[in-house]
């Protein structure tokens, strides 16, 4: 196990509001982290900061040992990939073209996609069960299908660290489990890592091994899911009474 990404005394603020202060977060290979918190607490802002898309207020982020501000956008994109909360499409394009954009950080300016790139994209489409959709227009997809194309694009990018902003958005129950299961299996097999913003505590318990809880007062708790996810913390986290049901070692959290 080695460290892929590490924040040191990270302080993230947005419009005078402190999201977190002095956050020391080491992400090791093979780990899958969940970020949990209420709406508007700053989960997405933190994720974008980790992705190098915005500068932290203080502290630093190291990506495989180098300060992220010293790396070019292209170098960053070869190590970490980000699934945005929503996809915006202004113009038509095929599913295949969209998935192939994931190869961008690996290609030079004048280069066209090679057969290898197309094979990687095809495998990524297979992974999200969209194999027959390659030539469809992205403007004619349903919300869940578009979401799966975005996930395929991320897999086509082949980063070491996956940052996922609510990956289960728009997905039905079957795909929520199929894809989260697929992601966690594949990442562990390839010794990669992921940080995902989740709203479903039970999905987080099932597919993530670590969790970062962002409380609305700017404090946080981090650790393995077993350590930090409990009814007391969740009740405080969501400002709503939470209970748990236990059955055969499996613990399910429900709102009270």
């Amino acid at each position, binding site marked *: 196990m080695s460290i892929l990404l590490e924040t040191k005394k990270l302080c993230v603020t947005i419009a005078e509001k402190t999201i977190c202060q002095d956050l020391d977060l080491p992400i090791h290979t093979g780990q899958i982290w969940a970020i949990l918190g209420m709406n508007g607490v700053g989960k997405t802002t933190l994720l974008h900061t980790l992705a190098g898309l915005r500068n932290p207020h203080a502290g630093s982020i190291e990506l495989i040992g180098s300060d992220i501000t010293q790396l070019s*956008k292209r170098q960053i*994109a070869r190590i970490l990939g980000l699934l*945005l909360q929503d996809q915006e499409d202004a*113009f*038509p*394009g095929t599913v295949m*073209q969209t998935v192939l954009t994931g190869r961008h950080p690996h290609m030079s300016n004048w280069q066209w996609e090679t057969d290898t790139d197309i094979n990687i994209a095809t495998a990524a489409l297979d992974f999200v069960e969209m194999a027959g959709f390659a030539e469809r227009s992205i403007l004619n997809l349903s919300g869940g299908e578009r979401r799966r194309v975005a996930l395929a694009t991320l897999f086509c990018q082949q980063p070491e660290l996956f940052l996922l902003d609510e990956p289960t958005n728009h997905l039905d129950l079957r795909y929520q489990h199929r894809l989260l299961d697929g992601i966690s299996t594949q990442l562990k097999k390839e010794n990669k890592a992921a940080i995902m913003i989740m709203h479903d505590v039970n999905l987080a318990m099932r597919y993530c091994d670590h969790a970062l809880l962002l409380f609305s007062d700017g404090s946080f708790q981090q650790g393995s899911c077993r350590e930090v996810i409990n009814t007391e913390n969740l009740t405080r986290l969501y400002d709503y009474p939470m209970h748990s049901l236990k059955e055969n070692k499996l613990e399910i959290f429900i709102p009270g």
Partner: protein
Amino acid sequence: MNPRAILLLLLLSLVSLASLMLALYAGSIHITWSEILASFYSDRQSMSQTLVQELRLPRALGAFITGGLLALAGALLQVLLRNPLADPYVLGVSGGAAVAALLAIMTGASALIISGSAFIGALCSMLLVFGIAHGQGSWTPTRLLLTGIVLAAGWGAMISFILTISPEQTLRSMLFWLMGDLGYVQSTSAGFFILLLGLLLSLPLARSLNILTQGELQAASLGIETRRLRIMVYLLASMLTAAAVTMAGSVGFVGLVVPHLIRMLGFSDNRILLPAAVLFGGSLLILADTLARTVIAPQQLPVGVISAAIGVPLFLFLLYRGQVHRL
């Protein structure tokens, strides 16, 4: 590059050549094909040679270059603003060029200075749109478009003002800047150079532009320095538009319609779209200008009339069919 894309570019090159030949052939004075051919080879001065070499050829080349410049600028601006409504003229660029040119005419400047000030006027107009729209925050496509539209209205009022206070004898030369006319094209080499430069500079950006259409964040997360890319695209589009306005005044709709037509044919990849737009826009404007010269010959129409006559119904039809997305 896939075979369909190669076929499209090949086909458009042929169409460009064919429309160029048609432009040399058609006109109020009949010239045979052999006379046209002879005009390129023989040294003998003849009426047909003068007509082809000094009138029809420069004008046809001017039309091709203007159309190519406008279509390329339109395609770039549509990606930059992530809005299919973007077009060099919607953003008030031609208005800025016209105001600068009109002011130069008022002071009795030479033709070269008038062209130069039109070029600078177009650039300043773009700068103003992007500067004001940037304001305190960041460029949002809607803000850019609105700023452009409001500024265009402002330029329009200034043009009316200048026309009102100008003496009668300058009015005719002023009108050129307002309606798009290829009858006054003098030199095509500067325009050709800018078109070639613009295409060569924008092609290596084309793959990044494809990703920029999916939003700035997505582009940044795929390794694109979005700020640098947007500034480059903006400068390129400004330069292309300024060159087109300087050559031919305000020719509307080419920049708006041509990229859409190519997207409707199923080519949304900017690596194909950009060169295709140059060829398509160029041949469209040659054909429009040939029509403008011949439809009520010997009277000549400004090409802007024809391009609007083709562009307006076409765009309305596309809108009605719902082919223009996200309006």
